[in-house]
């Protein structure tokens, strides 16, 4: 025992002395090992953190641990969309049965039905909004002709509409200068021209006073559609059992508004979607500039992108002017002048130009002034909480289906609020999804058809729908149902009281759990009690589905995440590839260095063998040498790597510069976490590579015969 110890001690001593004796070689090998350990520690920490971030993002937003979908589907499930848009999935015909069968599988906690798809949302424009307000004033005056406040409002609104008409007039004239006078649409343009001339004529408003409702009808049907900024945007939604969804996905939270009441129809718009697509462009640009300045320390003076945004903000001041009626405009002037220290009497356009004349010195002030003074007067989002919106999508049959749903609030996913991948997804009730998608269970088909007829969700042909979408609202009846907030105030329209009641009935109807479950879904998320047993549970769920004759495919969250998951796979691949290349090169270099060391030591080794050292002793001598170097420098490298990780953390992490990164990092920055595992892995790896590269030299040393030492001079 002590003999072993003695031999080990002399082994270590010789190894150490040799290392010191050939310093250059030691340092070269050491540096290679050090850099290797550093790369592994930092790389593994980042990878591990991305893994964790992605797991949090996916499992907590849509994925759960497992996903099931119909195995007969043409495409694969891609929770966040693929290159060609949404997944081509066959619907699961009866979710209730899937739920019943899979709930019995051990470790399954919740099953959340889903239908993910894209749809079109009609967004209102300033004209619509103003006309709505005008209609409200008209109604109030009709109820009480003595209402002085309503009278003043009406006058302000009329002035506002007059201005909007003037602006429209300008736009239309510009457009018509460019248009071919004898072109295909000449007749249509002529009609539009006539309408606008009528609205802009001085006689229009006295006529309006005589028959306000008729005047409103004319403005709404003939003039408002001419407003260019009226349109549709795409919305990505997940139709789901909202109550179960909110419970199952702990990252989901209602950012504004309130949750959809249990069983009700309704939608929670993705907060980030609202920011990107529904927010007033000026406000959005200000937010973006602030974000770049605060998080990335970008400066307007030095960033071309920020300069572009500032210019954009300045040129969009008109959108604000359009929104404000004279009363509001006066209020805005009154608020902005002192805040901006503008001269008395400066008008709103000049004030806005002053406000949006942004540079690095005034940005924070002006940003605050915008939100504190101006924003409360503005409609910041094209859709507000409480609105009822019309969503359209091509159904299964190809025809467009439309549903009206109430916006209960905005939804966001904690930690990944800014991610365009999760944050742009809206959450809608399952019934509305089924209506949109055109799928119903047989026993509910009739009832739903009746309801749809009542509420005015029209099924129109694809051609008509496209004409409505892209033809600038040439088809008046359709535009009426799609004009956003008009539906909310449906009762104001003559003869639509019935419709409104029906819509309200649908809105306030609470569906039972049986009704929610008993229908189609495209896929379902499964959440497990113990997520670490995911493989086992995946097999168990698949087995249970097969046994019950359900044609289900069960995939894990990573697979279900589609391209996002593959991106991480790619990252990991790149890291592994880089490591393989690095260690391949390291192996060759260390091998060469150690071969030289072995050859230089033939005499020493031969002498030891002649004196009575066994082969294993000389092999051990070489290995101890390399292990000592790789351990010492490996630990140093790992410590340095830990330092790098700590520095990255201290600097606030690696900022997520793109939506994808935001999602992968599960937050605004990647805070790498130095795990014991990654440090241990790096040490094991570098030592293993070092030993591997010393094996051939060790073989050389082993083959040295004692006699070889004899023929050499000292």
């Amino acid at each position, binding site marked *: 025992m002590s*003999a072993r110890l003695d031999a080990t001690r002399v082994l270590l001593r010789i190894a150490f*002395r040799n290392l010191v004796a050939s310093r250059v070689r030691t340092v070269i090998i050491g540096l290679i090992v050090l850099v290797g350990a550093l790369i592994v520690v930092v790389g593994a920490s980042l990878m591990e953190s991305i893994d964790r971030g992605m797991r949090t993002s996916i499992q907590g937003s849509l994925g759960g641990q497992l996903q099931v979908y119909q195995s007969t589907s043409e495409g694969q499930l891609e929770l966040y969309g693929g290159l060609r848009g949404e997944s081509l999935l066959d619907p699961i015909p009866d979710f209730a049965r899937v739920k019943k069968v899979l709930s019995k599988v051990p470790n399954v906690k919740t099953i959340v039905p889903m239908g993910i798809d894209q749809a079109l949302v009609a967004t209102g424009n300033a004209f619509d909004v103003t006309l709505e307000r005008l209609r409200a004033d008209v109604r109030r005056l009709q109820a009480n002709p003595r209402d002085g406040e309503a009278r003043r409002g009406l006058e302000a609104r009329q002035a506002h509409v007059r201005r909007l008409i003037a602006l429209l007039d300008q736009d239309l004239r510009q457009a018509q200068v460019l248009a071919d006078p004898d072109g295909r649409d000449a007749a249509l343009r002529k009609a539009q021209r006539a309408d606008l001339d009528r609205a802009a004529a001085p006689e229009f408003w006295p006529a309006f006073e005589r028959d306000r409702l008729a005047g409103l009808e004319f403005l709404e049907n003939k003039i408002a559609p001419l407003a260019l900024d009226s349109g549709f945007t795409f919305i990505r939604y997940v139709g789901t059992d909202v109550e179960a969804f909110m419970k199952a996905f702990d990252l989901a939270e209602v950012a504004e508004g309130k949750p959809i009441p249990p069983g009700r129809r309704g939608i929670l718009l993705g907060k980030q979607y609202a920011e990107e697509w529904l927010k007033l462009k000026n406000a959005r640009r200000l937010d973006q500039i602030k974000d770049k300045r605060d998080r990335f320390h970008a400066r307007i003076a030095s960033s071309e992108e920020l300069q572009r945004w500032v210019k954009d903000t300045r040129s969009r001041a008109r959108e604000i002017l359009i929104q404000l009626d004279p009363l509001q405009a006066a209020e805005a002037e009154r608020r902005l002048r002192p805040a901006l220290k503008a001269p008395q009497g400066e008008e709103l356009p000049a004030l806005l130009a002053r406000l949006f004349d942004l540079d690095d010195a005034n940005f924070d002030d002006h940003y605050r002034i915008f939100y504190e003074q101006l924003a409360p007067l503005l409609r910041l989002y094209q859709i507000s909480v409480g609105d009822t919106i019309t969503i359209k999508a091509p159904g299964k049959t190809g025809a467009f289906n439309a549903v009206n749903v109430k916006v209960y609030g905005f939804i966001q996913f904690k930690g990944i609020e800014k991610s365009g991948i999760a944050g742009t997804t809206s959450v809608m009730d399952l019934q509305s999804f089924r209506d949109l998608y055109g799928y119903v269970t047989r026993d509910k088909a009739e009832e739903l058809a009746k309801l749809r007829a009542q509420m005015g969700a029209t099924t129109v042909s694809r051609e008509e729908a496209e004409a409505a979408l892209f033809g600038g609202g040439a088809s008046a009846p359709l535009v009426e149902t799609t004009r956003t907030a008009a539906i909310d105030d449906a009762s104001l329209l003559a003869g639509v009281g019935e419709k409104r009641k029906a819509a309200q009935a649908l809105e306030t109807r609470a569906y039972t759990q049986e009704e929610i479950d008993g229908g189609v879904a495209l896929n379902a998320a499964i959440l497990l009690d113990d997520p670490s047993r995911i493989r086992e549970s995946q097999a168990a769920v698949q087995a249970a589905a097969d046994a019950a004759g359900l044609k289900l495919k069960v995939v894990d969250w990573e697979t279900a995440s589609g391209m996002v998951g593959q991106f991480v796979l790619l990252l990991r691949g790149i890291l592994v590839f880089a490591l393989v290349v690095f260690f391949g090169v390291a192996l060759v270099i260390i091998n060469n260095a150690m071969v030289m060391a072995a050859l230089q030591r033939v005499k*020493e080794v031969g002498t030891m063998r002649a*004196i009575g*050292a066994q082969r294993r002793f000389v092999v051990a001598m070489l290995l101890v040498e390399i292990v000592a170097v790789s351990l010492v420098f490996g630990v140093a490298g790992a410590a340095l790597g830990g330092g790098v990780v700590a520095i990255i953390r201290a600097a606030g992490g690696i900022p997520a510069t793109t939506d994808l990164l935001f999602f992968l990092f599960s937050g605004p920055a990647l805070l790498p976490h130095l795990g014991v595992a990654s440090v241990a892995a790096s040490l094991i790896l570098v030592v293993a590579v070092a030993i591997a590269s010393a094996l051939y030299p060790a073989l050389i040393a082993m083959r040295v*015969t004692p006699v070889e030492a*004899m023929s050499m001079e000292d």
Partner: protein
Amino acid sequence: MSIISVRDVSKDYLLGKTQVHALRGVTLTVERGEFLSVAGPSGSGKTTLLNLIGCVDTPTTGVVEVAGRDTSRLTERALTDLRLHQIGFIFQSFNLVQVLSVFQNVEFPLLLQGGLTRAERAVRVQGLLEAVGIREYGRHRPSELSGGQRQRVAVARALVTRPALVLADEPTANLDSQTGQNIIDLMREMNRKDGTTFVFSTHDPKVMAHANAIVRIADGVVAGREPVGAMA
């Protein structure tokens, strides 16, 4: 039983394309306790013979038996053990471990053997360093010593395990006559007290004079074996 038995041993080296017959049919028996000198002109095969006996090389033909064991039948590991435990070898070219100090070089075989405590080893090593006259050089590296001093380290290392057989290739070649005499005296002392068998090659007649017998070797064959009566 004789400690060394060499029968019909030949050893050929390949030098480039020509065969060098370093030994051509040597037969030699050495009894335990002998103090034997191998003499012969340079290139006659002295070192080659000692290497074969010391199990650091293998014969081309013939049998070499050491301590009753046919070396051609031993495994590499057993041969190594034999070298470690039975034989002490003083190489003509010293062969010290450069990265170890003088003390550590001498201690090295003891460490490989194991079994002695640190204190026991220190006593043994110090005693030998003193006996060969380099006590004060224990901490030095071999590269800091003269040729003669290195040779004395090599002697001390060969004797430190108190082997049954000591092979010495020109042990006094680099020493002044006084030191050479001391070394020979030391070896004789061990020979007398412990019965250690010594086989050494030398050109030096004064050294030969201490031997029991002289084996004369010339051009790879044993020319004769003669006792040295005067000193017996």
